[in-house]
């Protein structure tokens, strides 16, 4: 086994055991929140809305809600874990060791992705109590959820690197991530919006992720698949480059 593989495995195991150790704080709340969404928006209100893009409202919103839980959990896992390590100075354990920058990023992002996927899986299982989910394209589903959770885990890492207090790691999720997710087409089809707002919505990266993921389940999307995947790839590449530059330069980590 190479030293890098052992280092990656150590960091990833540590990250996964961190969020599973506090499962009551990390895995249960999103399950409860999403169950309420299913009951209120899907069953109670959704039954009065009727069909959306040719599907029942419940079928339409489930992929978006799963993706929403993946996004918020991937992001918050890395943001809180990395910032806590910075705050308690135990990130120094990694900084003094001969761990390459890309392994540090991969370890933390891997932890975020696993939590995002685990929460996504829990929400998916819960949704089966409310709707009969069918998979249209498994490959699209898997690739889009992996890329999206990677993207937001990278975002959480950058946030944690720049944060100076615990307040700083809640500003982005509360004031940027949540509005973008709600306006990203979780609850409605972009085709319902006037042309101008459709154009504005396309600036929102979450629109591409939710539409791609929804295509995996329903086979329908407001945006062409190739265009969505290209945008997600570009976002991942840009955020990875920024994170790599910051960690290797020691920004926010070294004096």
């Amino acid at each position, binding site marked *: *086994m*190479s*030293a*890098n593989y*052992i*280092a990656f*495995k*150590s*960091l990833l195991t*540590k990250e996964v055991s*961190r969020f599973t*150790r506090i499962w009551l704080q990390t895995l249960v709340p999103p399950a409860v929140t999403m169950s309420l969404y299913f009951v209120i928006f899907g069953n109670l209100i959704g039954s009065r809305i009727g069909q959306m893009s040719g599907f029942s409202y419940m079928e339409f919103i489930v992929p978006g809600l799963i993706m929403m839980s993946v996004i918020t959990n991937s992001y918050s896992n890395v943001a809180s874990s990395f910032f806590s*390590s910075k705050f*308690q*100075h*135990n990130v*120094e*354990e*990694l*900084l*003094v*060791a*001969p*761990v*390459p920058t890309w392994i540090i990023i991969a370890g933390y992002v891997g932890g975020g992705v696993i939590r995002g996927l685990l929460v996504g899986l829990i929400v998916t299982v819960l949704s089966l109590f409310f709707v009969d989910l069918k998979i249209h394209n498994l490959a699209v589903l898997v690739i889009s959820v992996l890329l999206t959770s990677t993207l937001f885990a990278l975002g959480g890492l950058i946030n944690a690197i720049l944060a100076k207090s615990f307040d700083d790691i809640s500003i982005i999720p509360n004031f940027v991530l949540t509005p973008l997710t709600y306006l990203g087409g979780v609850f409605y089809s972009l085709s319902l919006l006037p042309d101008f707002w459709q154009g504005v919505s396309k600036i929102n990266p979450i629109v591409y992720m939710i539409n791609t993921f929804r295509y995996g389940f329903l086979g329908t999307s407001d945006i062409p698949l190739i265009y969505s995947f290209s945008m997600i790839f570009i976002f991942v590449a840009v955020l990875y480059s920024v994170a790599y530059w910051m960690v290797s330069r*020691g920004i926010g980590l*070294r*004096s």
Partner: protein
Amino acid sequence: MKALVIKNLAKTYKGGVEALKGINLTVEQGDFYALLGPNGAGKSTTIGIISSLVNKSSGSVEVFGHSIDSELELAKQHIGLVPQEFNFNQFETVLQVVVNQAGYYGVPKKLAIERAEKYLTQLELWGKRNEKSRELSGGMKRRLMIARALMHQPKLLILDEPTAGVDIELRRSMWQFLQDLNEDGVTIILTTHYLEEAELLCRNIGIINHGVIVQNSSMKALLAKLNVETFVFDLALDSAECNLDGYAYRRIDDHTLEIDVIRGSELNGIFSQLTEQQISVLSMRNKANRLEELFIHLVSGEAKD
């Protein structure tokens, strides 16, 4: 072989504080080296740069021939760091702390557990291996940081005040442990505020003050510079006023007398004069640690090389 070579190392922090002003330092392989200085002198900055926790402004650092600029990962592989502050994850168990750290250095888990047993046993922590690290006492936490730093078996161990706040009994057992490590070939750099610790353990010494190395020599050579020692005599309570010809002395209170004695000279003269004056001496001791006196002289600028 040089364990550490520092050339013209300088560090200016963002606020403009010049922590290091171009220091030069060499530590030989196998040495037990004391890096001393008052608070804010630049010790921790120097250690931070060597262990890549602080970015240098200029200069170079080589660890066993590997530059931290061009071969950082190789240089890091040789260093074990015991920092001043507790910086392990307080929610992890003792065993998790040390095994995870070994993993970051590429040590396979099976071997890491073997080494954990070895070092935690030597440092009397094996029985605590499944306890959360935050539940350990201060002394145990200090020992845990030493065990963690040894998990990848570094050739250079840097200890930044490892015995701060540790009781004397435990401090002595840690001294013995460090001496054994040094005898096994590990080069050790130690910073401490307990100067008797440095005097007892270290063969060579560097004193840093205001970002400049003001002394870099062997411990023997440094201590040889001290030509006056002060002794404190505890006198019987009813002792009369005394008059000591040929000695500088001070009567501190009714039963305490301080006398400066030129190094190497006999003390018999003092006792003769005190006996003639019918002054009873109950006990006698050195006023301060020898190194402490030199240290104070050096950092206050009263003595020069």
